[in-house]
């Protein structure tokens, strides 16, 4: 089929496979991209009037949108019939796997193809480092973890697949031999974050990770646990130096100093399933004639998924190695982190490759999703806070975290670091020592999930802070206020946050709220058999990962309609709507059509990359930056709450270019303002009211008229760009309109009039320095929650009676989306605190028998749906950009609920979830 360059964007990596991420040719069925572009040229766009999401109509009419909606017959150019694959996972990780009893399948349930570990060896597939471990457990080995896949079975018909699925479900067709016990593996990473502040706020730190580098211990015991003593290590930082400071802090806390209040506590958090409602799914078709592997996927990290598949097959045997891979990405039915860097697309690709010329669908059912999907890490934490009794100021803080990472490393090292560096929450302490280690275990793999380690560590913190306040005693909010990290103050790694820190306002709001104000009165109004309690907590949470990318493209047609493409993924977060709204700030019209999860629409930028943005040296970055097409990374996952801040960035910057060099010159001509008139330079003073461009003293101009003129003038009517953030945006200058124009993009292409896009060579570029990688985080948003609970003493049942969350997010691109996130985050927090629990090992989800009857997530009746108040603070200045909040809104509700339960029962629970039985236990 003939494909234009626009329609098939491809690049060739080291593997020699052309990797494309694109649209397909037109046929009777609407193209996939057409279905995924919303609301579509003729569709009603609720986003235009701020009355809904751009995907609103599609989602209330059941349009095909999610990857699980697609079958081969929906895809133009594909064969009509869909085959189905079953990924068989092991419910055992203590015995030797010996193979499958396929002979015991009924004759009408036999697979047409069976892929086992030895087939992958023969095919020469490779496992991307991130997923290191056998993709399929070889016969003769003990599975590395519960739920590890052992075979991929492919069925020509749905009926055969459906029968086999049922026959496999009790695990009896999987043969096991001798007991070996679970496999042990080294830990996934261990770090120590120690900071000793200087004598005064202005003096430099005595010791800080930002100065000295991050340190890890060099030794571990037989079980993979690190030895934290200050033993020297051969490489990787001066461990002994940092650890010596750390041990001093520990000694100080242990010294029985009467002037120092030391509160210490253990806290355990449970394993959680993200429980997105759409189980993981994908479609693959290996077109043997064209040696092309077509993939339809639904993940939060499309670029990574495509690269992982490319790596998987990069050195494969000639007969299975495709010449090109064409991956397309759909709307995502919930993610919460669990669809970011999942190995699932690798299995989808294998299913296609091992059943050539037949489209194959691989889809988890819910039991399989519990068995194989990424989980939230269970944490075990010890925390100590030392407070000067006289001043009520925290003088020392120490914590030790142990994470159960499950069977594959995945994001475990990163979650450990992010959790550790958040362990001090909103507070300032001059002496800090935090250790963390992520362990391998036979549990189902843990990875990214909303909160990403910080939910765990800040929950432990915020309940201990409450305990410290009561021990002093000080009012819990006053104690928090005295210890706040102020704007410009240094975080645990030794760097100040570079965005506003509005925790004083959040605390004021919590203190003034009726839930908190009336807590004593309400508690005294106890009816027989009911206990009432009130709790509060406040956190800040980083957003961004330190290597965040954004790709955006915008085109304004001569009729004023605006089309937008972005690489960010829509998983419910409203990114498409946020992008459309951010465009409206610049261009007067929201994006009329928005296509998200697009990574193949930016070919004209000609981007190249090399190295690892997290670990590269400054010299390597400087050298690479000489190539005007080089960027530190090309595309990143939609996760880490980066939607508003990062996901909209490239489109917003591109829209600014279109305005400045396309619409503004057109408006000047329409207004009859000649060259040389000083008003030519007042473009920043013009603004949009609806779709009319307003400039004081001049007649308003409709966007359609301005756009037509811009096309006529052959001004800039389209722009695409790439943005990169390492706790600061890359900045570059581009030759445009006679200027050397500096913007927060590192690559830019524009089109003039209706012409093709042309890449502009940057004339200078400033990438954020590589030592920013030691910062940990520089971007934070804040949220505080106050909550009232009523506990039925007889049953221990907790009713969440009222709640209030206050969140600061800079410029809200859509307050409805922000408050919606906050409502959903609160619900998830209630689940984490009171309901949800996955045993880690044999009794847990890895056994393949878990579903929503056992794993109870909150329903409306578990929530104060009519008494949940969300307040979104206005930006601190009109210039304040959007900040990511999708994670932070979940976190304070967990410790606030725990503090409320303590207030009601007098007992501090230090293990989640707090069940009615646990409460009844302490009340009896």
């Amino acid at each position, binding site marked *: 089929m003939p494909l234009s360059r626009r329609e098939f964007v491809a690049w060739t990596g080291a593997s020699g496979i052309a990797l494309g991420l694109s649209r397909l040719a037109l046929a009777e069925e609407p193209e996939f991209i057409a279905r995924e572009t919303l609301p579509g040229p003729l569709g*009603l766009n*609720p986003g235009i009037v701020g*009355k*809904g*999401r751009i*995907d*609103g*109509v*599609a*989602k*209330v*009419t*059941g349009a095909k*949108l*999610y990857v*699980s*909606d*697609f*079958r081969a*017959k929906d895809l133009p150019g594909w064969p009509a019939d869909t085959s189905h694959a079953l990924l068989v996972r092991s419910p055992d990780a203590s015995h030797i796997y010996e193979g499958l009893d396929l002979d015991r399948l009924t004759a009408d349930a036999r697979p047409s193809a069976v892929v086992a570990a030895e087939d992958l060896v023969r095919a020469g597939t490779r496992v991307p480092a991130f997923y290191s471990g056998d993709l399929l457990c070889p016969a003769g080995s003990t599975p590395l973890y519960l739920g590890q896949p052992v075979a991929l079975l492919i069925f020509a018909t*749905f*009926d055969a697949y*459906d029968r086999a699925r*049922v026959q496999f479900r009790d695990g009896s067709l999987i043969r096991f031999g001798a007991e070996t016990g679970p496999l042990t593996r080294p830990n996934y990473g261990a770090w120590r974050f120690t900071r000793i502040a200087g004598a005064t706020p202005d003096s430099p730190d005595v010791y800080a990770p930002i100065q000295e580098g991050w340190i890890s211990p060099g030794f571990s015991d037989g079980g993979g646990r690190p030895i934290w003593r200050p033993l020297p290590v051969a490489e990787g930082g001066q461990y002994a130096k940092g650890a010596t400071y750390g041990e001093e802090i520990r000694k100080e806390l242990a010294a029985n100093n009467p002037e120092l209040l030391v509160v210490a506590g253990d806290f355990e958090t449970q394993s959680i399933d*993200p*429980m*997105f*409602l*759409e*189980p993981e799914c994908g479609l693959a078709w290996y077109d043997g004639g064209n040696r092309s592997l077509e993939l339809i996927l639904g993940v939060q990290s499309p670029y990574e998924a495509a690269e992982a598949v490319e790596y998987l097959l990069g050195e494969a045997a000639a007969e299975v190695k495709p010449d090109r891979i064409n991956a397309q990405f759909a*709307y*995502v*039915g*919930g*993610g*919460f982190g669990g669809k970011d860097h999942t190995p699932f697309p690798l299995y989808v690709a294998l299913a296609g490759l091992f059943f050539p010329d037949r489209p194959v669908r691989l889809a988890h059912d*819910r039991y399989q999703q519990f068995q194989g999907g990424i989980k939230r890490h269970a944490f075990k934490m010890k925390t100590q806070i030392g407070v000067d009794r006289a001043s009520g100021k925290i003088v020392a803080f120490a914590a030790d975290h142990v994470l159960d990472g499950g069977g594959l490393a995945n994001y475990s090292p990163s979650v450990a670091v992010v959790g550790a560096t958040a362990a001090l929450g909103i507070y300032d302490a001059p002496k800090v020592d935090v250790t963390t280690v992520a362990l391998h275990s036979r549990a189902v793999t843990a990875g990214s999930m909303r909160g990403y380690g910080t939910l765990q560590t800040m929950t432990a913190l915020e309940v201990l802070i409450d305990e410290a306040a009561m021990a002093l005693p000080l009012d819990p909010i006053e104690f928090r206020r005295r210890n706040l990290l102020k704007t410009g103050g240094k975080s645990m790694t030794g760097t100040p946050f570079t965005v506003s820190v509005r925790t004083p306002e959040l605390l004021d709001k919590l203190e003034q709220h009726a839930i908190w104000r009336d807590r004593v009165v309400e508690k005294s109004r106890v009816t027989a058999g009911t206990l009432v309690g009130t709790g509060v907590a406040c956190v800040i949470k980083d957003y961004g990962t330190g290597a965040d990318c954004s790709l955006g493209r915008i085109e304004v047609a001569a009729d004023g309609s605006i089309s937008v493409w972005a690489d960010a993924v829509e*998983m*419910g*977060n*409203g990114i498409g709507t946020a992008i459309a709204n951010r465009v409206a700030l610049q261009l007067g019209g929201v994006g009329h059509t928005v296509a998200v999860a697009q990574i193949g629409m930016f070919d004209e930028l000609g981007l190249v990359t090399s190295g690892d943005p997290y670990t590269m040296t400054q010299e390597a970055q400087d050298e690479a930056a000489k190539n005007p097409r080089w960027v530190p990374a090309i595309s990143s996952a939609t996760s880490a709450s980066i939607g508003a801040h990062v996901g909209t960035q490239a489109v917003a910057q591109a829209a600014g270019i279109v305005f400045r060099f396309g619409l503004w010159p057109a408006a000047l001509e329409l207004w009859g303002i000649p060259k040389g008139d000083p008003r030519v330079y007042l473009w920043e003073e013009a603004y949009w009211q609806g779709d009319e461009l307003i400039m004081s003293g001049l007649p308003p101009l409709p966007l359609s008229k301005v756009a037509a003129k811009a096309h006529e003038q052959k001004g800039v009517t389209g722009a695409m760009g790439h943005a990169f953030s390492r706790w600061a945006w890359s900045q570059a200058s581009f030759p445009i309109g006679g200027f050397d124009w500096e913007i927060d993009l590192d690559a830019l292409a524009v089109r003039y009039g209706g012409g093709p896009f042309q890449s502009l060579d940057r004339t200078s570029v400033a990438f954020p320095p590589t030592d920013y990688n030691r910062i940990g985080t520089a971007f934070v948003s804040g949220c505080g929650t106050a909550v009232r609970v009523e506990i039925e003493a007889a049953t221990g049942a907790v009713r969440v009676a009222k709640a209030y969350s206050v969140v600061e997010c800079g410029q809200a691109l859509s307050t*409805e*989306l922000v408050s*919606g*996130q906050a*409502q*959903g*985050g609160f*619900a*998830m927090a209630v689940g984490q605190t009171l309901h949800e629990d996955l045993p880690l090992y044999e009794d847990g989800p890895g056994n393949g028998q878990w*579903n*929503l*009857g056992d794993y109870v997530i909150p*329903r*409306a*009746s578990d*929530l104060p*749906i*009519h008494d*949940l108040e969300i307040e979104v603070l206005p930006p601190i200045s009109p210039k304040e950009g959007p900040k990511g909040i999708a994670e932070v809104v979940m976190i304070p509700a967990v410790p606030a609920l725990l503090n409320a339960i303590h207030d009601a029962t007098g007992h501090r629970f230090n293990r989640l979830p707090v069940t009615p039985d646990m409460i009844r236990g302490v009340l009896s």
Partner: protein
Amino acid sequence: MTSLSLTINGNPVGPIEVRDELSMNDFLREILNMTGTKFGCGAAQCLSCAVIVDNPDGSSHTNPTCVVPAVNFNGKAIRTVEGHAKDGVLTPLQRAFIEHFAFQCGYCTAGFLNEGQVLLERLASAPIPREALEKTILEALDGHLCRCTGYVRYHDAVRDVILADPGRYLT
């Protein structure tokens, strides 16, 4: 194999020979390619897969499709998410879901829409007092799981449709 005929969104479907074990959810999604009806848990615990069944007596109820064999729907009349809007005109409930930003990822939306629609129709034939409204909505929707939204806006949307036409739904 059993011959299956039914009415979907007013249109006759079948007769089609289907396997007795085939679930209604797979019949809709795999055989008819009607994927607006979702698959969430396969165990009738999330109700993402619920469709409306119109009974001969004029009443309606929602029915999960994942735990019911397709053949049990023989002779029945059902409605799915694809059938609510007529000639491109959205129903008041569909509009309310959009205007309230009721859903986020939208995967549970079909189930909530069907349940909310059945409730509206039930109240239209048997109005309730205003003070019973929130509880009635909660009772009707509580079987449906949503992981994104915290449910607030779904409930507000249904309530506002009812309050916008009190003469019809309330006593």
